[in-house]
């Protein structure tokens, strides 16, 4: 049994634990540090922490720490769901987020999904937690597979209609889940032919549920089968019978972990890069001692070599979906380069990495520099290492980095890496699959820059081309992604799901511009977005964002000039824009004033600027700009 045995109590005199903070009534005051206290917690410790954190009043935490990102989560469903809240609370806290929950009444999901005025329609995440009793509560006795098929069809028909209605007008993302099939039902059919038929009709119902995610942009369907397949019990029969908690507490905790990753993505804090140690992590053995021929990797090699090769395949699979790979290793660079270029047992090669850092410096210094080189926040990194020392040091020095410790059993590396859905996203875009190449190009550009004496000359030689387009359906996914992933050049951090972007496209007062850029090294694709709204003779820039890959090349000034020109040409008298400060966007806080805007109001968090459209800023001469036809009033 795990949990609260005396040996797990913190040692007096050590650093504060979550329990210390609770006992001393300091959890609200210390909330921003809670994330760090949870990073090594076991499942049992997370369960306890969830109980303590769920007692906090979110309003008090927000009052004390206005910068903590808040995610509102409305929970509805079929059974008793209150036991889910502590798990949700702690899973969001693990990511530095604060849960603002709303728990619906018991078995209210049909009503809630049909009520556009309700909490479900306003939340960032709307969870509709389904369980097997959605169907079996309606199945008579005696029953056969055909009864289950009929009831499932009816319930899913109702649900599909409600989901369509939700997807039309709700604000956030709806999360549904598949229905696990507990043995306690399958085993009631004594003949195997019927049992197999039950399995088939059950899976057909689940397949139909899963397809709802393909039909609606703002619907996610979590497949609970892989969670149950890990050995998590689906049902706790007594809780199901006595309290109508139809999914076991363990399954609800696993479900909450998945929700934590969706919430992190929704809050714009998805992870972007996977940074790997080499010796003992990517391959077995120590390169410096064993030499290239002595390290363990290769599909046809020893057991351990094959396990490392299998791990590399999984890493490669993640990279193919837009996760940036880097290596940071305490090694000499030459032998590392030799292995990555020519070792026959390697699945990953030099070209798969945006950067390989092999030296003898502290890893946290290397990670910080890598983040600067890639123009990413270090907290968008996931770091994998087999050395507890390195893991501990990185955790201590760089608390925002997600550290994944692996150990001397390489067959478990894959589970360790995938245990948390660090890179989970509702969908991928075209840019995701070419991201590694884009970042590698970026590093080539930096080398190119080093060859010039002046920035102006570099920019002139870079031959930057910008064209703005009125966004259409083809850009929706990418623009949504920019609002969700961009943290540095993001003036207001207004996060928008695809459906919200689509709604703006259909709004006659709103204008959504996609910023395309290219240069001598190739096409950057859609790198920025401007969201504007016209009120009378004022144009409001609701948000302006630019991918961190392409800052400071004149692209942002060029796009802003075009917006101002367009406003003036179409009769506007002023353009207003907000800058809302966050921990990560301070480097763009002067963007508007540098371009001729004057401050109007400042409440300490948000500054509103105005441009009177008298003298317009001049776009940078080195940028070749393609105007939207008619945009300049001609």
């Amino acid at each position, binding site marked *: *049994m795990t949990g609260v*045995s005396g040996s797990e109590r913190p040692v007096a005199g050590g650093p504060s634990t979550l329990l210390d903070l609770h*006992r001393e009534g300091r959890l609200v005051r210390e909330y921003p540090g809670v994330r760090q206290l949870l990073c090594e917690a076991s499942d049992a410790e997370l369960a*306890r922490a969830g109980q303590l954190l*769920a007692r906090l009043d979110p309003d008090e935490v927000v009052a004390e720490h206005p910068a903590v990102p808040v995610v509102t989560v409305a929970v509805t469903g079929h059974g008793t769901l209150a036991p889910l*809240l502590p798990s949700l609370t702690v899973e969001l806290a693990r990511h530095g987020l604060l849960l603002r929950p709303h728990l619906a009444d018991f078995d209210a999901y049909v009503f809630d999904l049909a009520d556009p005025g309700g909490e479900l329609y306003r939340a960032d995440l709307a969870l509709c937690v389904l369980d097997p009793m959605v169907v079996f509560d309606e199945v008579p006795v005696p029953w056969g597979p055909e009864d289950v098929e009929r009831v499932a069809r009816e319930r899913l028909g109702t649900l599909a209609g409600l989901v369509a209605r939700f997807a039309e007008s709700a604000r956030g993302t709806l999360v549904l889940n598949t229905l696990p099939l507990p043995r306690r039902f399958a085993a009631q059919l004594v003949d195997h032919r019927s049992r197999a038929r039950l399995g088939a009709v059950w899976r057909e119902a689940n397949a139909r549920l899963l397809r709802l995610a393909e039909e609606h942009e703002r619907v996610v369907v979590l497949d609970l089968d892989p969670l149950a397949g890990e050995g998590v019990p689906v049902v706790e029969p*007594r*809780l199901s019978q*006595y309290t109508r908690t139809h999914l076991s*507490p363990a399954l609800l905790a696993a479900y909450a972990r998945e929700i934590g990753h969706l919430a992190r993505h929704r809050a714009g804090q998805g992870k972007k890069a996977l940074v790997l140690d080499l010796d003992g992590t990517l391959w077995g053995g120590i390169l410096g001692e064993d030499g290239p021929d002595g390290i363990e990797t290769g599909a046809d090699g020893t057991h351990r070599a094959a396990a490392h090769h299998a791990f590399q395949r999984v890493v490669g699979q993640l990279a193919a979906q837009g996760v940036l790979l880097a290596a940071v290793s305490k090694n000499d660079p030459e032998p590392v380069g030799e292995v990555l270029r020519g070792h026959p047992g390697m699945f990953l090669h030099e070209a798969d990495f945006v950067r390989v850092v092999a030296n003898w410096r502290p890893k946290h210094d290397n990670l910080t520099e890598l983040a600067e080189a890639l123009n990413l926040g270090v907290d968008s990194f996931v770091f994998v290492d087999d050395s507890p020392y390195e893991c501990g040091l990185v955790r201590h020095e760089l608390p925002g980095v997600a550290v994944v410790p692996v150990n001397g059993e390489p067959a478990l590396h894959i589970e360790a890496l995938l245990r948390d859905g660090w890179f989970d996203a509702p969908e991928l875009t075209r840019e995701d699959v070419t991201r590694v190449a884009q970042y590698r190009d970026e590093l080539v550009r930096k080398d190119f820059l080093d060859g010039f004496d002046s920035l102006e000359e570099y920019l002139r030689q870079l031959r930057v081309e910008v064209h703005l387009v009125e966004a259409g359906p083809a850009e929706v996914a990418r623009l949504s992604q920019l609002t969700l992933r961009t943290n540095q050049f993001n003036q207001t951090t207004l996060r928008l799901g695809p459906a919200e972007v689509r709604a703006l496209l259909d709004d006659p007062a709103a204008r959504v511009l996609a910023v395309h850029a290219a240069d001598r090294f190739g096409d950057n694709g859609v790198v920025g977005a401007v969201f504007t709204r016209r009120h009378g003779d004022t144009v409001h820039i609701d948000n302006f964002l630019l991918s961190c890959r392409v800052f400071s090349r004149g692209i942002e000034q060029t796009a802003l000039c075009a917006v101002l020109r367009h406003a003036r040409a179409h009769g506007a008298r002023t353009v207003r824009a907000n800058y809302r400060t966050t921990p990560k966007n301070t480097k763009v806080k002067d963007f508007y004033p540098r371009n001729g805007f004057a401050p109007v109001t400042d409440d300490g968090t948000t500054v509103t600027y105005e441009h009177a459209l008298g003298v317009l800023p001049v776009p940078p001469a080195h940028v070749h700009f393609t105007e939207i036809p008619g945009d300049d009033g001609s």
Partner: protein
Amino acid sequence: MNSIDDFLILLQDDLGLPVTGADVGAGLDRVPGWDSVHLLSLLTLLERTTGRALPLADALEAGSLEEIYALAVTS
């Protein structure tokens, strides 16, 4: 869990309830911060801590923390 004091610590440290010895014998509706969800969490926690199964149907009908404690240590 060997005593009612251990039980109190469990309530305070694992469920975050601001309870004292005086609350143990009172009706559950008079326990500070209590709601029915705590009952489920508490029963799950007691089973984990003691390593024994509780008679849940009886525990769910208990009127006070004291009664729950008695079920946990005698079952």
